[in-house]
């Protein structure tokens, strides 16, 4: 499974999906930490009318994922599913232009 880089606070240990300049809880320094790209699907939608900078992507599927590591991130679902149940297991399959891309585990 592909790994994802998130941030952890060296002072209080808080995790953050980033990017951030300092820990929002204690202003401590943040360092990156690799985590497994496994998680559950919180919700998803299909953007059928993309803004200018994403026009060349055509319609695409946005997913909110709760990583098992304990942070919530905004990414994409590979392929637009006919149906994806909320709470379904997903895994990171790669990144496209810095965007984490997930696929349903089934």
């Amino acid at each position, binding site marked *: 499974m592909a790994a994802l880089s998130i941030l952890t606070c060296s002072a209080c240990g808080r995790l953050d*999906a*980033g*990017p951030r300049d300092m820990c929002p809880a204690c202003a401590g320094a943040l360092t990156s930490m690799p985590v497994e790209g496994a998680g559950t699907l*919180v*919700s*998803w*939608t*299909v*953007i*059928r*009318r*993309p*803004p*200018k*900078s*994403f*026009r060349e*992507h055509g319609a*695409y599927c*946005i997913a*909110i994922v709760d990583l098992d590591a304990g*942070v*919530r*991130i*905004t*990414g*994409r679902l590979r392929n637009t599913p006919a149906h994806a149940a*909320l709470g379904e297991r997903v895994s990171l399959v790669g990144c496209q*232009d*810095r*965007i*984490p891309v997930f696929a349903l585990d089934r």
Partner: protein
Amino acid sequence: MRRVLVAGIGSTPFGRHGDATITSLALHAAGAAIAESGLDRARIGSLYLGNFIAGPLTGQEVLAGLVADGLGLAQIPCTKVEGACASGGIAFRHAYLAIATGLCDVAIAVGAEKMSHADTASVTAALNCAMDNAADGVSGLTFPGLFGLAARLYGERYGVGRAELSAVVRKNKGNGLRNPLAQMGATLRDEEIEASPQICDPLRLYDCCPVSDGAAAVVLAAADLHAELTAQPVEVAASVQTRGSPRIGGHRDLCSFDATVSAARQAFATAGIEPRMVDLVELHDCFSIAEIIDAEDLGLIPRGESAAWAREGRTGVGGDRPINPSGGLLAKGHPVGATGIGQIYETVLQLRGAHPNQVRDAAFGLTHNLGGTGVACTVNILKRLDA
């Protein structure tokens, strides 16, 4: 803090204004508000202007100074405020504070936006300035997308869906039909809503507010000036502004906005009333699902029941919790920077008993303006002077 009155209101219709500049729209609304108040413009001690995207869409900034100059105001502080879709509400609150704290006796809040000349992709891109573009924006998420995500989660959690979203759309479009300022009133059948194009599943075109031009303005005055006012004033019982997470991942729940919850709690505490005492609400229905969520966040309807209330007609003008009798953003339109002040305009008309969709014997009205991904929120409670 001193008591503050809304002394005069003005608004352009919301919709397409072709060749009119954003400045001329703002001047039209502000001039009407000043004239109605009966107060000499020389007494205005500060101006706050709410606007979101005049820079990218019209190439015009310094709107606060331009509008003050056009109105012939004195050399007073003129400030443009920006809080995405809550810009107008924030301008109102700052004008309120200027008087409540005794900095001046009369202030004006103006909101304006000009959007309809731009193509949809440019408008979507400009609106995306309200997202944390280092965090969520990179994914290609849009505002319709954010509310599509919320609609799917809300629908699954509470077992509701198209029928309830459509009930909100039908009500607000119907209310808009009777509001002369509204851009897109309509009598819609569920089949027409269901046949409209998908925008961000499960949201369809009719679930989304239109792109609009427009301006609204209110003159605020210290309560001691009551005897000099020529229009029926209403009192600002509370004016609250809060912040929430700019990031999707920072919200505890996709079906709730913390900024709304905390603003509403503070507003009710300040006004000294219970949510059930509110006679009408003008809230931020940028999308149909937003009305359902906002009503719960504001504490007006129990969590998880808002969709059913919409379906049962309880949020109509004659219902037990009238929401958006103006038609809301869905029908009246959403000239972003003007919206929060347009909500005040509508609520003042209600409390004067002069609204085209009058709620019977309205004494308390609440307005709710939400910016970005819930990053900024204002909640105001207005009351009739005899309430």
